[in-house]
C-alpha cells in the first residue's frame, strides 16, 4: 500500500501489479479488485463488522452479478484472499458468521472511476466507517475517500507499509506519533494529510519493521490521536 504522491514521471507500478494477482475469476477488476477493496475496508475498520453495505457505481452497478463482484467484496470483508476458491460461497459463509450484508446500486458522481464502490461497515457501539474505492484494472485498486476525508491510497503490491491515522487537525497533532515511530526505528517515507474541520486523516508510508498490533494500539492512546489502522497485514502474494 502507499499514498500516491509521485510525479507523473515516476514509476507507479510493481511488475507484480501487471503479472498477477493470482485470483479466482472471472474478472480482475470486478472480482479480484473487488475482493481487495473489501480487504482494505476491513483493515480500516476497528473490530469485527456486524453489518456491511456496498453501494455499487458505474460498471460495478450494471454487471456485478455475473462477475460475482458482490460475493468478492463480501469475501474481502471476511479477509478471504483473491485466490481463495471459497470466494464463490461468500454469501453462505457470511450468513454462518452472522454478518449482515446489503448490496445497493447508486450514482456516486461523475468524477468516479467506472468501477467504484462505497463500503460502509457498522458494528454496535462503534462509529461506522465508510470508504470509497475503485478497481482500476488488472486487480489494482485505489481508495479515494475514507469517512469524510478525500485520500489517494494506491493499492499497489507492497512498496511501503502504511498507517492510516484519524486525528485532530492541529498542526502538531502527529508529533507524538512520529516520535513513537522513531523509537521503533521506523523511517517515515511520506505523510498525506486531509483535514475536514477539526478532524484530519493522515496516510503515513513507512520503511522498516512492521508494527505489531500491540504497538499500533499503543499509538491510539497518544494525545490528539483518534484511531490508527495498520495496512501492513494486507494480502501479499
Amino acid at each position: 500500500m502507499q499514498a500516491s504522491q509521485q510525479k507523473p514521471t515516476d514509476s507507479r507500478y510493481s511488475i507484480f501489479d501487471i503479472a498477477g494477482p493470482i485470483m479466482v475469476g472471472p474478472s480482475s477488476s470486478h472480482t479480484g479488485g473487488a475482493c481487495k477493496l473489501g480487504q482494505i475496508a476491513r483493515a480500516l475498520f476497528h473490530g469485527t463488522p456486524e453489518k456491511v453495505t456496498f453501494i455499487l457505481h458505474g460498471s460495478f452497478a450494471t454487471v456485478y452479478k455475473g462477475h460475482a463482484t458482490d460475493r468478492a467484496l463480501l469475501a474481502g470483508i471476511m479477509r478471504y484472499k483473491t485466490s481463495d476458491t471459497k470466494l464463490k460461497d461468500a454469501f453462505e459463509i457470511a450468513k454462518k458468521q452472522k454478518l449482515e450484508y446489503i448490496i445497493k446500486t447508486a450514482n456516486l458522481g461523475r468524477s468516479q472511476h467506472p468501477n467504484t464502490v462505497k463500503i460502509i461497515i457498522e458494528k454496535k457501539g462503534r462509529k461506522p466507517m465508510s470508504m470509497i474505492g475503485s478497481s482500476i484494472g488488472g486487480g489494482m485498486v485505489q481508495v479515494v475517500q475514507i469517512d469524510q476525508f478525500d485520500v489517494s491510497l494506491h493499492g499497489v503490491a507492497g512498496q511501503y507499509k502504511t498507517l492510516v491515522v484519524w486525528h485532530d487537525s492541529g498542526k502538531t497533532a502527529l508529533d507524538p506519533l512520529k516520535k513513537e515511530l522513531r523509537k521503533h526505528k521506523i523511517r517515515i517515507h511520506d505523510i498525506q494529510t486531509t483535514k475536514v474541520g477539526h478532524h484530519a486523516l493522515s496516510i503515513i508510508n513507512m520503511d522498516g519493521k512492521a508494527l505489531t498490533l500491540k504497538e499500533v494500539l499503543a499509538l491510539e492512546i497518544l494525545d490528539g490521536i483518534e484511531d490508527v489502522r495498520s495496512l501492513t497485514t494486507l494480502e501479499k502474494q
Partner: protein
Amino acid sequence: MYSFITAVDLLKLCKKHKVGIADITIRYEMEYSRRHRAKVMARMRKIKNVMKEAIKEGINNPRQSAFHMSGGSAPKLIKALKKKKMAMSPLVLTAMAYATATGETNASMGRIAAFPTAGGSGVVPGTMLAVAELWRLSEKKLNHGLFTSAAVGKIIAEGATLSAAAGGCQAEVGAAIAMAAAGVTAMRGGTPEQCLNAASLGLKSYLGVVCDPLGGLVAVPCIKRNTLGAATALAASDASIAGIESFIPFDDVVLAMKNIAKIMSPKLRETALGGLAVTPTGLKIRKKIGLPPLKKEDI
C-alpha cells in the same frame, strides 16, 4: 536506477547495462520492492505454476460457465492437433488451446493468474507455455519471456490503461497480445528492439476493439478473443523476427490506445450496453441474467 515508464526508457536501460528486457525488469522489481532477486523469482514461479494448473484444469475438467455460455472448447482444439490440413501449425493450435483453457477456467470461477487482467489472462500463458513446451525451451527462457511481457504490460499501464471499463478490450486482450508478442520474441532470442517491435505490431492490430460482453460477463466473446489473440501474438512475433518493422514505435501505439479509450463510448466499455451485448443473442442473455431491459432507442 532501473525505473522505466516508456519503451524508450526501457531500451535505453537495456543498452546502458547491455542486458535484455527481462534483466532490467527483474532489477527494477528488486529496486522497487526492495526484495532479493530470489524473492522476485519465487513470486514469478508461483504465478507460472498457477498458469500451468489453470491450463490443465481447462483441458482435463471442462466446466460450463455461468448461463452456459462457454466451456469445452479447449479440448476440441487439442483434438484438432491430430487433424490433417489445419491452417495453423501445431504450435499455434496448442497456444490457442492453452489460451482457451485458461479463459474457460477463469469464466467458471477457477483459479488463474491475471496476466495482465483476468479477461485477458489466456494469451500470455497460452503462447509462452506452448512455445516453451513445443520448442523445449528451459524454465530460464520461459522466465525471460514472462518478465519481458510484464515489462510491456507495465509500459501500457503507465501510458494508457489495463482496464476494459476504461479502455475497452484493447486494454485487456490487446495489452495481452502485445505482452505475449514481446515475451515470445524474447524467448526465441530476439533483441529488445525486436521484442518491442513485436509488441507494436500485435497491439496495433487490436487497437479500438471494444469491451461488449454478453450480460457483462467475462465469457462471450472474451474467451474466444483470447483464443484468436494467442494466434495474433505469435504472428506478431514471427513478423518481427522476419524483419518487419512497425512504422509506429511502441510508445506511440500506447498513446493511440489512450486516445481511443478517451473517445470510446462508455456503452462499449464493459457496461453491456453496446456491440455484441445488445444483439438479439446478447439481449436474450441479458434477460436470463435478470438485467433491466434496454430501451429501443438505446440499442
